[in-house]
């Protein structure tokens, strides 16, 4: 259950990323990318985020989680490829020393602040 630690880290990172004068209370959405390889259960992260957000002064913030798919590169034949299963083998030449390009790590990639816009206006302008 590392999701509690990650949820705390998400809130902490979001707070540090707010421009001067913007209060944490005004945060309505926090967007994160979670690597497929990181074994983070989105429902658990969501649950933990909801459990800790108020104590960090962001009572109305919602967490939006996007999974970052694994992408690899083969050093042998230079092929770039995605994985459906955790099998780090080049599908072209069989090289087993493939390089991980993405799909590992947890990144904050946007914060939405309440600026009085309606829900409809917000939804028409994705972050």
């Amino acid at each position: 259950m590392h999701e509690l630690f990650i949820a705390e880290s998400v809130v902490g990172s979001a707070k540090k990323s707010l421009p001067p004068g913007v209060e944490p209370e005004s945060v309505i959405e926090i967007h994160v990318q979670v690597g497929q390889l990181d074994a983070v259960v989105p429902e658990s992260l969501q649950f933990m985020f909801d459990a800790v957000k108020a104590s960090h002064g962001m009572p109305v913030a919602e967490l939006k989680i996007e999974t970052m798919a694994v992408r690899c590169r083969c050093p042998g034949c230079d092929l770039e490829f995605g994985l459906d299963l955790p099998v780090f083998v080049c599908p072209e030449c069989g090289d087993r020393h493939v390089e991980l390009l993405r799909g590992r790590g947890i990144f904050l990639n946007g914060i939405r602040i309440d600026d009085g816009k309606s829900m409809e206006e917000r939804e028409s302008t994705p972050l």
Partner: protein
Amino acid sequence: MDIPIIRDVLEESNARAEENRAFFDRNNVFVINLMGSPGSGKTTILEHTIPILRSRSLASAVIEGDITTTLDSDRLSALDIPIVQANTEPFGGDCHVGSHLVQAALSHLNLKNIDILFIENIGNLVCPAEFYLGEDRKVVVLSLPEGEDKPLKYPLMFRECQLCLLSKADIERHLDLDREKLLFNLGQINGALDILTISAKTGAGLTDWVEWIITQRQTQR
């Protein structure tokens, strides 16, 4: 108002790990983050490894991670080495040792004249793999009774580690283990992973494991 940003959520955790790293470098200590399932044999392996290292004139210390008890550090105290118990319960009962916990433990640990520091992580094949602590090498202990499918079920762990110790080799003949399949699965996840088979009970493979540590330490320096 939208604030677009790309920021590593674990930056604070990683920054503390880098501080640990600098501390280890200043003290010329080689650090191994030892991970694996509960009951895979991590503590028993340390009990048998540390005396061999001592016989090779290498002094060890241990940060013993656990959620709540001191049972493992009590066992290791017979080795008469510096040990710090790092329980995660005061930190929220985390199922992994975090870089902040290592930092707190280091303030209680005298690393003078210590060559190798083992961080025995909390028994778990998922969470500990996520976090960099400032270590030189990550090692996973996979006991043979756990079965050949574990690398596929916990890919990050086997992807992150440089060595997999296949432990409890003394009972392999009693198991329905497909060893070829296990090695194949490990290779599917991490083609660069070193693999050693050991038994802390019989001592088989322990010399190879100690040689691996010595070689990796020399490479690091």
